[in-house]
Each structure stands twice: as structure tokens, then as C-alpha cells.
């Protein structure tokens, strides 16, 4: 529908995918402004390159690839991944939402907060491909097949990346649990 670059048609896709695009970018950068800029840049690139979209694949697989590549390039340029902010201001509200169960005791909340902090730090130190596979599966619910398309690799490789990512995250909790 958007092959001829009609802006109105594309805006429908923007409305449909903007939250997910922003969330992916935020998961990579942990920074709201950067997530906004990167996700918007991904839409602009998709709009400019929509003629190159191969309709044999789904739009969101193609689009996710643009978002992920932009994020990875951005992190490479920035050469730092502030996952440590997970225990900072940005993450506090999300942490509170995640731990919204008011029946938990203060001890449990403290443990859960520590778990989240460690997971965030460990997630930031994962190799890029493991982090990508994990974020797309765990945070965004893409199937292994879809992730393989986004990462342009085999499903077997995605499974290995995912397993290693989960093992590393679990290891980060070794002293805690």
C-alpha cells in the first residue's frame, strides 16, 4: 500500500508501530531522548526506502531490522551503554510499576529492586547479538523465526544467542538468589 510512498498510508504504519519502535530503542539506549530520536529516524529511513521493501517479508520484521541496526550503530558510536541507569531515575518508575504488587514485604521489594538493578547491568554488558536476540524475544515477543529474519541469521544461531543471554543474566543473580 505504501510502495508509492504515500505519506498518509505510511502514517498508519507510524501509528501502529511507534510505541514498539520507541520501546526497542529505549531498551537499547535506556535514554528517552535518544530512543525518540532513533525510533523517529528509523521511520524516516523506512519511508525513504519503502520502495526497497521486499513484500515477501512482513513490514515489521523489515522495520525492526532498521530500528535495531540504528540502535546498534548508535551504541557503537557512543561506545558506552548506560544500563547502569536502570537503578537511576529513569528506571525507578518502571521498577515501581513492575513491583506494583502491594502485598510484597519491604524485604521482598528490596530484593526485587536489587534483582532488577543487576539484570539491567548484566543486560548492558551482553554482547550485541545476544542482547538483540534477548530484547526482541523477551521484551518484544518476536518469535525465533522473526528474530532470525531481523538479525539475518539462522534460527539455530538465535537460539544459541538467546540461551547464552539468559544464562548470563541468571549468572548475574548468582550471589543474590
Amino acid at each position, binding site marked *: 500500500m505504501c510502495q508509492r510512498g504515500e505519506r498518509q498510508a505510511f*502514517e498508519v504504519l*507510524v501509528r501502529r508501530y511507534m510505541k514498539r519502535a520507541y520501546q526497542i530503542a529505549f531498551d537499547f539506549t535506556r535514554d528517552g531522548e535518544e530512543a525518540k530520536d532513533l525510533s523517529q529516524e528509523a521511520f*524516516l529511513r523506512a519511508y525513504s526506502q519503502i520502495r526497497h521493501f521486499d513484500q515477501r517479508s512482513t513490514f515489521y520484521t523489515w522495520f525492526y531490522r532498521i530500528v535495531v541496526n540504528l540502535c546498534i550503530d548508535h551504541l557503537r558510536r557512543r561506545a558506552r551503554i548506560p544500563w547502569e541507569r536502570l537503578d537511576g531515575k529513569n528506571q525507578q518508575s518502571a521498577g515501581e510499576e513492575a513491583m506494583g504488587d502491594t502485598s510484597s514485604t519491604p524485604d521482598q521489594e528490596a530484593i526485587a529492586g536489587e534483582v532488577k538493578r543487576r539484570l539491567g547491568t548484566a*543486560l548492558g554488558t551482553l554482547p550485541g547479538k545476544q542482547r538483540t536476540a534477548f530484547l526482541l524475544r523477551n521484551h518484544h515477543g518476536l518469535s525465533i523465526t522473526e528474530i532470525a529474519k531481523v538479525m539475518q541469521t539462522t534460527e539455530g544461531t538465535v537460539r544459541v544467542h538467546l540461551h547464552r543471554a539468559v544464562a548470563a543474566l541468571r549468572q548475574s543473580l548468582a550471589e543474590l538468589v
Partner: protein
Amino acid sequence: MLQHKDSHRSACKSFEEDLVLYYYGDCREPESHRVEEHLKECASCRHFLEELQTFLPLTAKPKELPQAFWNSYYEELREKLAAIDARESWWKRSFAFFHPWAVPALGTALVLILALSLTLAKGMWHFKGHRAQEEIPSELRAAAGNIDFFESMDLLDSIDFLEALEDKSSANSEFQKL
């Protein structure tokens, strides 16, 4: 949740990857059935799966943003898309005469012009008015203006002829004297 320090035990190595996939619902048959059968008899793997079920959701809670943010995000993006369209339409206007049929037509015309230029330059096309000039060798054409040269050449020929006649007549007179 996650309270016992001695609970961080490893799963069976041969099942660990399948357990991760099983947690995400990505474990296919027959592996899925194999994992379920194994879980019934392996406490370590059961505990590993419970851990995944406990800590992995903690990493996935998205941060909820207010609708005003999304309205602003969408409007800002619309403006950027409109700017791209404006740039593209300027470009298209500049090259509006390039209709689909115009490109092959222009290409054909260019090829014809090129072919004509090459053939004319190589002299493959002759015009009647120039034919006589074209057939004269260039060395002669270069010296054509110097008619005195040719005339002197004729004069020399005449002198040679007279000398020959003179030699012949003197020979005859000596013969007659004898």
C-alpha cells in the same frame, strides 16, 4: 521469591537451552515432550525453569508514557515526513519532463546523433559536390597551387628533348662528312 541462596543450581546441561526455549514457548515437538518428561523427574531443571519464570518478567516491564508524549511524537514525525515529501517533490518537479516514455525516446535520439556524428567524422558519407576533390591525392592537392613548378618541369623536358635532337643531328652530319 528468589530468596534462598542455595537455590541457584544449574540445570542439566543437555536441557538448559531447551528449557529457555520452553519458557518462551519456542520449544518444538519432540523436544517439548522430552523436556516435559524430564521436568517430572529432575528437581534442578524444575527449579531452573521456576527461576526463569520469576526473574525474566522483571526485565521486560515497559515504561508507560503519557498519551501527550505519543501525540507530540506522532506530530513531530509527521512534520519530518512532510519535509521529506517537500524535498522529493522539488526534485520531481525539476525532472518532471522525464516521463516514462521520454527516457527511451531521448536515449534513442542520443544514439542516433552519436552514430551520425561518428559516421560523418569518418567520412562514410560523401556529397556529390565534394567527390572530385576527395579523389585527388593529398600530395598533389598540396602542390596544386605551385603551377610554376609543373611548368618548369615541362621546360626541362623540352630542353632534354632539344638536346637529344641536337645530338642526333650532329651525329648525322658527321656521318655525312665521312
